[in-house]
């Protein structure tokens, strides 16, 4: 085993050797090495986060037919550092009547709920924090900590707008958790495991080819979970100024902002892991773990780009439309899809792989078609309720 095949393990063993050589206890050395590994991962993520600000601003600019940051450094690459310096030296205000402790914990929890997700992300076959056997559920659990941070921020700011923003955001997150959880069961059915690494390893055929509808529902639920347009009604500048983070200034606001960007990038990564083969790309991941990391980061960026593409193209929807869309459409469709997929999987398990793929895709198409027919008839009755029955216009003689 050498460094280029399993860098993390080799580095960890070397460091443990160094520490024990200094007369440190083996257990303490192991704990220290694990701690350093976590610290390294978080540092890399935060550095990526800095450049995500730049990427986001550049991509928005292109979607809006602008150039974006272009003054500081080549392609405006130094702009995010200037932004960070500005955030750091801004006055740190606390509103009167705010609940100080809760107010200060909320931004930390928000960032934490994103960083904790990376504990289960497999960067390469041999490089992952922990191969949790409930990895799929872990995403939802981390999301619920994010929900908690938002409600804490909104409530402790002692501001009407922030409370209303938090209510809306939490309503979105709590309700879209359900279709997301249901849809996450579909990769679990295909791979027979809830662990991320096992899901990636069993994607000889990317799961998007087996269940494109599930990939679409996951993307929609992820965008809602992120609170990005078209589900950014919690921000609603025209009604709520900025939503739950309205009273935060300086780096505390920066924590929410950076957390949101990293969250979007992370969900791009989960989309890649669940449906696009994660670090796998025609066997390239077996060549070197570093290549595998490059592949998964590239796929995560692609997912992030799709999320940005949706954000800057689609309009914001109202809260009642959002709730109706989730509870009356997305959740039933997700549940039906899970049941159909499980049934098809049980029927076709031993069958030829071409038959398996065709059956899965056909069942997806049928579920999508039937649910769209339902939506069409519901929309028709809704329209007739508003407009009245169609008047037959007599031909003018």
């Amino acid at each position, binding site marked *: 085993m050498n460094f280029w095949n399993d860098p993390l393990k080799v580095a960890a063993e070397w460091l443990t050797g160094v520490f024990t050589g200094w007369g440190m*206890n*083996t*257990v303490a050395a192991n*704990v220290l090495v694990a701690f350093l590994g976590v610290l390294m991962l978080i540092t890399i993520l935060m550095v990526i986060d800095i450049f995500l600000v730049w990427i986001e601003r550049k991509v928005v600019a292109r979607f809006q037919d602008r150039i974006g940051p272009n003054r500081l450094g080549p392609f405006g690459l130094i702009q995010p550092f200037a932004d960070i310096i500005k955030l750091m030296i801004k006055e740190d205000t606390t509103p009167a009547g705010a*609940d100080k402790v*809760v107010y200060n914990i909320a931004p930390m929890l928000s960032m934490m709920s994103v960083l904790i997700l990376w504990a289960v992300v497999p960067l390469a076959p041999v490089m992952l924090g922990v191969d*949790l*056997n*409930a990895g799929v*559920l*872990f995403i*939802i*659990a981390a*999301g*619920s*900590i994010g*929900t*908690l941070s938002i*409600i*804490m921020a909104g*409530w402790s700011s002692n501001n009407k707008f922030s*409370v209303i923003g938090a*209510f809306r955001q*939490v309503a979105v997150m*709590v309700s879209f*958790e359900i279709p997301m959880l249901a849809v996450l069961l579909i990769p679990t059915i295909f791979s027979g495991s*809830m662990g991320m690494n096992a899901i990636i390893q069993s994607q000889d055929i990317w799961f998007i080819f087996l269940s494109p509808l599930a990939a679409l529902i996951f993307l929609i639920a992820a965008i809602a979970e992120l609170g990005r347009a078209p589900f950014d009604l919690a921000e609603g500048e025209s009604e709520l100024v900025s939503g739950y983070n309205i009273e935060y200034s300086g780096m505390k606001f920066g924590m929410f902002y950076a957390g949101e960007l990293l969250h979007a990038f992370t969900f791009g990564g989960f989309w890649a892991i669940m449906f696009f083969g994660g670090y796998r790309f025609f066997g390239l991941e077996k060549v070197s773990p570093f290549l595998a990391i490059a592949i998964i980061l590239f796929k995560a960026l692609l997912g992030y780009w799709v999320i940005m593409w949706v954000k800057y193209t689609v309009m914001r929807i109202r809260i009642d439309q959002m709730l109706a869309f989730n509870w009356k459409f997305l959740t039933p469709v997700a549940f039906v899809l899970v049941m159909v997929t499980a049934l098809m999987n049980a029927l076709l398990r031993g069958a030829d792989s071409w038959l398996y793929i065709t059956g899965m895709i056909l069942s997806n198409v049928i579920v999508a078609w039937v649910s769209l027919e339902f939506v069409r008839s519901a929309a028709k009755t809704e329209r007739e309720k508003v407009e009245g029955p169609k008047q037959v216009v007599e031909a003018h003689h």
Partner: protein
Amino acid sequence: MEKEFNYMTGTQIIFLIVGAVTLIAALMVVTVRNLVHAALWLVATLFGVAIVYTLLNAGFLAVVQVVVYIGAIAILFIFAVMLTRRQAADTGAALNSNWWAGALMAVLTFAGLAYLLQTWSGFSKQSAAIPSGFDAIGQLGTALTSPQGYVLPFEVASVLLLAALVGAVYLAFNKK
């Protein structure tokens, strides 16, 4: 031998810290005046229980604990408090005159549980190491759905939850 001993103390230290924090948080839940703070302390308590599950190698239960209790129930509590109260703080005393009865019940329950566990043969035994590749979630799923396992209690619980759901919908349903 020495390594084994060290490992045990490491786990024990973590368990003692987590247990103490969980107990203090639980005490804060029933004593703080501000209801939202009480709900947040409840979140801390539930999180402590999740960590205890992790220490017992029950990762799945720990994650479910966070999803269900923090993600759903605690959030619901906070929502209910915020929507039903103008001010989240109660003006009266946090404890009423029956506090000693509650404390007595808590102590008696603890004593009873401790006594029951004391008489159990596995109480002082070391837990066996989990073999590698042990599929805990698969075993749990099989146990919950197999007729030899717990399929009946599982289904009864599902029916109970369904009844609660139907009841909630009926109460909220706007009869025109």
